């Protein structure tokens, strides 16, 4: 993957930066130029909380080549306390014991390594909130 594509998203992937609409309060992750709720165009940058609840999940067994080292791996959608929903991998858990509704925490991990030559992309993953 060309480095600019990874670099451009680092505010979101490294720091969970979102855009909060100054008019209606809608939180856009990733940030947008136009509010999908009210059409306003002024946003302030906020940082998303790093905890959430798992809304749904799947365990992927047939994995794209970048992810075969991690298969089987879980992908889930979690809802954060402010209502924002994210898709990410759910790691550090027995995939057989995942439950809808479980509490998760966001951790910083490698997402794709692009074999041994490419730039490494980092970002957020869910882990069970075990403490």
């Amino acid at each position, binding site marked *: 993957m060309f480095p600019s*594509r990874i670099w451009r*998203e680092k505010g979101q992937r490294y720091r969970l930066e979102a855009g909060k609409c100054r008019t209606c309060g809608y939180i856009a992750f*990733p940030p947008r130029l136009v509010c999908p709720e009210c059409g306003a165009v002024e946003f302030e940058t906020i940082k998303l909380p790093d905890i959430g609840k798992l*809304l*749904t*999940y*799947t*365990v*992927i*067994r*047939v*994995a*794209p*080549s*970048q*992810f075969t080292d*991690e298969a089987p*791996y879980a*992908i*889930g*959608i979690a809802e954060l306390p402010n209502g924002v*929903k*994210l*898709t*990410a*991998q759910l790691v550090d858990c027995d995939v057989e014991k995942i439950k*809808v509704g479980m509490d998760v925490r966001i951790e910083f991990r490698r*997402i*794709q390594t692009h074999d041994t030559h490419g730039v490494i*992309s980092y*970002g957020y*993953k869910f882990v069970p909130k075990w403490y």
Partner: protein
Amino acid sequence: MRDVAVVGIGMNKWGELWGKSFRDIFVEAALIAIKDAGVDKIDSMTIGCMTGGLFVGQEHLASMMADYLGYKHIPASRVESACASGGLAFRTAYIEVASGMSDIVLAGGVEKMTDVSGDGATYALATAADQEYEVFHGATFPGLYALMAVAHMEKYGTTRDMLSAVSVKNHKNGAKNPNAQYPFETTIEEVNNSVMVASPLRIMDCSPITDGAAAVILTTVDIAKKLGKPIIKVIGSGHATDTIALHSRKDLTTLAATKLAGERALKMAGKTIKDVDFAEVHDCFTIAEIIVSESLGIFPVGKGGEMAAKGESSLEGSFPINTSGGLKSKGHPVGATGIAQIYEIVKQLRGQAENGRQLKNNPKIGMAQNMGGSGGSSLVHILEVA
């Protein structure tokens, strides 16, 4: 707006067509459609193709297809809306005829998916999802529909067997379709025990990788009458979009674009879903058929799986769905699917469906629903036999 009818349909056997090229697959289907319509020329054509670029390295394909079809110099365009590209091509052609811009238009769809590895196909298909916020994290298409399936199972109690019932029913229908890629029957047990792809979805919940094309000819009802063909009128066309990222939707268990496209098509037709006799819907995964059947109002919300398990969507059921075998059995060459749905609707409305899959009691109105990505685009068309 002029009244528009479908006067010709064309399709060949779908499958892993190792010996056939991208262009030949399309031209074969188009020639059948032109012959079926009995027209001596077409004025223009629109082709649905999701990603010729990623599958065979070929973009700029509308011009090439026109040339190889023997129609060099006609206006030809390619439209794309992921797996709904075929449905979009049909709508575009419909608008072109209805508006008076052209009289006879070919709407086609084509995809050649087997010239890349399985991993290459997964990559190409995943371009229909949000690259940076879904695919980047390892989401695949079976994975995204699996997320919907788990949410639906949690919320409505949809079961493994209900998912399997959709696959069993579609394979039963597809076994009667000479063009189907996988015309075999299966059982609940076989589906339940097939290879896991993305839990809870197993390989027998998933539509396959397919090479194939389909084409239909649209013209005005007036011209259709002169051609002496059965008049299959396009009475409704609905199109809607939604966020392409699943997580951005308020509800993970409904398909808002499909609901809206269905409402728009029905409104245009002046009908309700109760007036529709049968439908071809986008069962890229078994859960998709269940949720689509709810979002279109065919079955009550939350009951799509139960109704499928009860046989309500079988050939003999209260609302037959996917008489062709659907994407599951017939195959899913993504850009061609939307056109092949129209092909089946016309077959049924003409009373020409083969091998005992023809619906009894002369169906009058059929609906085709074609969807892109995880539901980020949806097209619904309603056809009526005049």
